[in-house]
């Protein structure tokens, strides 16, 4: 069967619209329909409005403005015939069975044969959805449950019914995986599937236990948070985000549909405080405030709800001695003899036990449950990984001591761990009590797996070089936050020599949450504070030389970023032969934010790209202006698509939607470049010199007059203008790369001595925010 080339989404609410946007992000045309509004002339107003809102939203549902043009909007009365062209039809309308079923009948009348229809329902069983519909429909029908926001949340729960065709599930799953970049978790047709069933249980348990124990919500959030690798929003912060009013809905529908013996019912007792808040409109961030709020009447004071009185009071810092006492040990935290320790256990002991109870019910594999919680709730560790941390036997014993049932899977796991590494292969315990290899989907290569199986080719404290097979090496940053430091430069230099000797190609890639946010500013600032100018200049020169060597190495180099690639982390991309970027790549030359300019060839490479590839009017000035604007305003491309527009990615560079597939794609790209590889030709530059600098300086002076640029912006921009205009040159001269690198280095050295630059760097390090001086 052919793949999915066109998609329809019906229902342009937050979820439907977000799903449509993300399909468009994958470059697939999508039809977005909603009902005809009761009043108003525009019959497509709802879908159109949704697209318009999304274009302004932050974080942006679209990866580029161009993607938005792939969305065709319409209404379900006039445009249902558009579904005839679609291979996949996603229903995301209101959670009412009658409405959904009526819609399905109409869809079935127009859809093309063999197209797949899926529902984004979070609460209605598939069984009920297809009840009464023809078998031919049921065979093409499944549930695809996205998480909000669809662009950013990587989890997709897929549920097939008894009648669903296996290949229908396969086609949708494959499309979701490769094109939408989702991690597909197959679930059984059980209420709430995996993530919400466990997640909502967890949230509700945490709320009622906190009320019973009379805890401050700040304390509760700090306990059910960082110590277990749960995002710092904790419980109450997270409920504020999703909306307090949503909880009773989901809980209500789940308690209705779950059997009487399900442990879920134990935590569904009413919480009058919360009910009152919802009734009064305190429904969270979207409402008048939630468990936390910023009180505008009181000078934007931060406040929190007192669970006892239901009144707001000043927010305070969490004060939980148990966390400190426990150190990194979860068992010590769960055993801590204090209200806080007992709370940690009451919530997490129950939740982890419930996760165990879901094995065989919501999903057959523990790793599915772990993946669902990691990607659906951003837990750093899934529930079974957490149980491994405390030990299965310890956990079972503590459950028993608390008078709670010990779930079946724990008995199977007695004396074992859920996960283990056997001969370099990750294995997981099955319901059969046996360990099974964890197999990655076809075409997925993970560096983490390679690291389990092999030793690095080269390694130091900040980087490593790995053999990823087929003659390809992978250079990995391992420093804190992947910050670039002299050790990385050193190992990169060594790696270039090694790859030349022993490999065919090099991939620069890592599995950190960010590719690299740039140079280690702390080191640089420290060196500047002790006036170690020669050392700093050597750091700059060394980076330039190393990146240059990378660019002209006699083998292909592919950089494969994901997450942030900023400053020096962006410059390394610019020196690769090709880039294979994860779609969620945020790249830019942001050095001016700390009062500096790109000094490792970033100015030069951007200039070369815009000179040769920019679709710009003739003459040197347009390219100079463009590069100057990008760098002087620290523009960051907020997706790989935007990076293409910024020419950080060139035509021919690739984009990978699924994070897990990035390394494989990068490796393939590198291998494709091996045959007949020639290093790039050195660019040359004909630049106007002083005349261009004057023009750029005037533009900056204009911004300063308008109050859009600060005094130090003027200094930094001036230094940048000196580089991109070519310094002391004119159009009769041709400059080579070294001339531009010299200009970068000199400008960098003059800025790094400037007290206002040092103040910016210090501020960034201390607060994480730029200083506008």
């Amino acid at each position, binding site marked *: 069967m052919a793949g999915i080339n066109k998609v329809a989404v019906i229902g342009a609410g937050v979820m439907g619209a977000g799903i449509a946007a993300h399909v468009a992000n994958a470059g697939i045309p999508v039809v977005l329909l909603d009902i005809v509004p009761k009043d108003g002339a525009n019959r497509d107003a709802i879908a159109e409005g949704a697209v318009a809102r999304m274009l302004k939203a932050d974080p942006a549902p679209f990866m580029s403005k161009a993607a938005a043009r792939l969305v065709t909007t319409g209404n379900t009365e006039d445009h249902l015939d558009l579904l005839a062209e679609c291979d996949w039809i996603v229903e995301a309308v209101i959670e009412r069975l009658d409405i959904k079923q009526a819609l399905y009948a109409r869809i079935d009348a127009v859809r093309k044969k063999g197209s797949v229809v899926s529902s984004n329902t979070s609460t209605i069983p598939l069984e009920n959805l297809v009840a009464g519909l023809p078998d031919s429909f049921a065979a093409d029908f499944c549930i695809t449950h996205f998480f909000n926001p669809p662009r950013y949340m990587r989890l997709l729960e897929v549920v097939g019914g008894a009648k669903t065709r296996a290949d229908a599930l396969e086609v949708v799953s494959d499309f979701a995986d490769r094109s939408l970049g989702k991690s597909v978790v197959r679930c059984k047709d059980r209420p709430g599937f995996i993530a919400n069933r466990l997640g909502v249980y967890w949230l509700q348990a945490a709320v009622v236990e906190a009320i019973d124990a009379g805890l401050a919500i700040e304390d509760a959030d700090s306990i059910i948070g960082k110590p277990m690798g749960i995002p710092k929003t904790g419980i109450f912060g997270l409920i504020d985000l999703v909306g307090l009013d949503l909880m009773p809905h989901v809980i209500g529908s789940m308690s209705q549909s779950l059997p009487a013996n399900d442990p879920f019912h134990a935590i569904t007792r009413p919480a009058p405080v919360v009910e009152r808040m919802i009734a009064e409109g305190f429904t969270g961030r979207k409402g008048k405030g939630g468990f936390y709020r910023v009180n505008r009447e009181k000078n934007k004071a931060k406040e929190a709800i007192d669970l006892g009185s239901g009144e707001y009071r000043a927010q305070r810092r969490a004060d939980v001695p148990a966390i400190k006492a426990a150190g990194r040990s979860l068992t010590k935290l769960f055993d801590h003899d204090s209200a806080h320790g007992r709370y940690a256990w009451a919530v997490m002991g129950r939740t982890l036990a419930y996760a165990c109870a879901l094995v065989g019910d919501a999903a057959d594999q523990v790793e599915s449950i772990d993946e669902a919680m990691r990607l659906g709730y951003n837990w750093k560790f899934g529930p079974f990984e957490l149980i491994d941390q405390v030990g299965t036997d310890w956990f079972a014993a503590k459950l028993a001591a608390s008078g709670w049932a010990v779930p079946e899977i724990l008995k199977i796991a007695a004396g074992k761990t859920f996960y283990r590494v056997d001969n370099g292969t990750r294995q997981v315990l099955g319901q059969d009590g046996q360990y099974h290899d964890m197999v990655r989907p076809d075409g997925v290569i993970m560096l983490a797996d390679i690291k389990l199986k092999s030793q690095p080719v080269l390694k130091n404290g900040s980087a490593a070089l790995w053999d990823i097979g087929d003659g390809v090496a992978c250079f990995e940053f391992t420093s804190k936050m992947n910050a670039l430091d002299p050790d990385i430069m050193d190992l990169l230099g060594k790696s270039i020599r090694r790859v030349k000797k022993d490999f065919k190609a090099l991939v620069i890639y890592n599995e950190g949450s960010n590719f690299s946010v740039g140079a280690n500013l702390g080191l640089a*600032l*420290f060196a*500047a*504070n*002790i*006036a170690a*100018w020669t*050392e700093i200049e050597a750091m700059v020169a060394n980076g330039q030389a190393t990146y240059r060597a990378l660019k002209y190495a006699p083998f292909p180099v592919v950089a494969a970023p994901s997450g942030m690639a900023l400053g020096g982390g962006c410059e390394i991309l610019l020196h690769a032969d090709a880039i294979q970027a994860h779609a969620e790549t945020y790249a830019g030359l942001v050095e001016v934010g700390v009062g500096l300019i790109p000094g490792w060839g970033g100015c030069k490479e951007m200039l070369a790209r815009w000179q040769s590839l920019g679709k710009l009017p003739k003459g040197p000035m347009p390219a100079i202006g463009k590069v100057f604007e990008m760098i002087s305003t620290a523009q960051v491309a907020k997706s790989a698509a935007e990076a293409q527009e910024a020419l950080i990615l060139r035509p021919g560079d690739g984009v990978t939607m699924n994070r897990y597939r990035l390394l494989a794609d990068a490796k393939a790209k590198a291998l494709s470049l091996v045959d007949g590889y020639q290093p790039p030709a050195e660019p040359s530059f004909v630049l106007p010199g002083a005349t261009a600098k004057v023009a750029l300086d005037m533009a900056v002076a204009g911004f300063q007059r308008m109050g859009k640029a600060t005094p130090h912006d003027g200094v930094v921009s001036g230094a940048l203008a000196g580089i991109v205009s070519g310094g002391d040159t004119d159009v009769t001269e041709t400059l080579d790369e070294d001339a531009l690198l010299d200009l970068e280095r000199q400008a960098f050295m003059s800025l790094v001595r400037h007290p206002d630059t040092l103040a910016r760097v210090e501020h960034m*390090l*201390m607060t994480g925010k730029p200083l506008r001086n």
Partner: protein
Amino acid sequence: MASYKAPLRDMRFVLYELMGGDELSQLPGYEEFTRDLIDPVLEEAAKVCEQVLHPLNRSGDEEGCTLENGVVRTPKGFVEAYKTFREGGWTSIACDPAYGGQGLPKAVNTLVEEMICSANLSFGMYPGLTHGAYVSLHGFGSDSLKDAYLPKMVDGTWSGTMCLTEPHCGTDLGLLRTKAVPQGDGSYKITGTKIFISAGEHDLTENIVHLVLARLPDAPAGVKGISLFLVPKFLPDSAGNPGERNGVSCGAIEHKMGIKASATCVMNFDDATGWLIGSAHKGMQAMFAMMNTERLSVGIQGLGLAEASYQGSVAYARERLQGRSLSGVKHPDKPADPIIVHPDVRRMLLTQRAYVEGCRALGAWAAKSLDVKNHHPDARVRQDADDFVQLITPVIKALMTDLGFESTNLGMQVLGGHGFIREHGMEQYVRDCRISQIYEGTNGIQALDLVGRKMPAHAGRLLRSFFHPVQAYIEAHMEDAVMGEFVQPLAKAFVRLQQATGQIARTGMAKPDEAGAAASDYLRLFGLTALAYLWARMAQQSLDQVDGEDGAFYRAKIGTARFYMERLLPQTGALFSAIMAGGKSMMDFAEDAF
């Protein structure tokens, strides 16, 4: 018998020529402090120190303090001397005019402090402690406390103490046990034992104001649970005069190596009434404010004693006839040449001199920075000055007391066996100086403060206040033909300091023991480099004046600068090697092998 002449010429050089003392009067609030006003102050101070305090130095040492029935008596003459001192307004020179002080710039006051320490350190302890208490109370006390106590402390009728140390807790104040119980009326009852309390009890003033660190009943453990209290010996009556006796008494006084005329007391607090200074549990904050100025003052103690010792050793070296010069007889009319002709004696004298004059300049730099920090109109300049003061405070405290001790020891050596005999007064300087390396945070703790706190603060920003001006100075004068002989050694030491700083920053993060192992050597390296910078500047200041009226003074400056660069600064090479070797040899050594 040692005699003392205040080194006014050199003080003026440092204040006006090196530090641009005239700039002081350009700071808002300091308009009146021009040379016409400062010079007479220094001259008057010199008189009091030379004529009133110094004559009591040795007798005070011989006699010491006595405790009888809970009453401490200072040595003969101290009560009268204190009266003269107080009536001369010397207790109030550095204090806030709002409380009757004279508001003298710190740069001037520091010179006066030096004279007092040279003349009679034990005596200086009494007003010195009062000033420490004054700083805490002034900075953190409530208005009513300040109004009730500060005027009397400023005019010297009441004195002050700082009560931190307890039998089981010196460096580690987190172990402190003294208790404070709130009485509901804003007062507290303080109970506990403090030891080593300087000026805890004496007969110089009608009342004594103790500032006491103690714990409130709900206090968290450790240093975050310490509060500061004011506990007077006599509770003021309604007219503000000393009234009812408070529950505080002196249980014993210590018998000790030096500063014998300064009473070091065991103080018992027994339900003594006190009042909170600053916020509950924030006592360390108030204490640190005081400590920063006190540490500077303790550094000045080392300097003052070294100066006094230098005067004694030079005088003796000119007079004492022993042996003949190695290069031929210099004084054929005498039975032997004076020992000042001998290279080794000159080594000792010049070492003393180079340290003394270098430290005086360093103290003045810090003091002036304090003035700038407190008075400069530009916030950025104020911050830079404050950064420098914070950075250099531990260096000053440890370097100047360590060099003070080395210098006083050399001074004693110059006198040979006579240096060891009490009559000459030279061994007293050694003994008196020794405590300055210990109290107010031992010098080891100063070094840890430098590498552990000051260095990493704000990603190294404090360092900038020192490294940038020095680097700029080197760059500006490196190629200068005349200055080269001073700037090149400075540059060499400076690069060592930079590299050592980088090394400690790198290794110290991952392995704190490495930073701890390097700390003392690093502080010395830092201090010697700072002195080198000042010596280069002093030489530069002197170069074009060698043929003038006061040529001899400037020629001696240049000569001392040369000696410092050639003979003392090379120590930085050894320190650098030791630092780079790391701490493994110490930390690998088995504990039971000691």
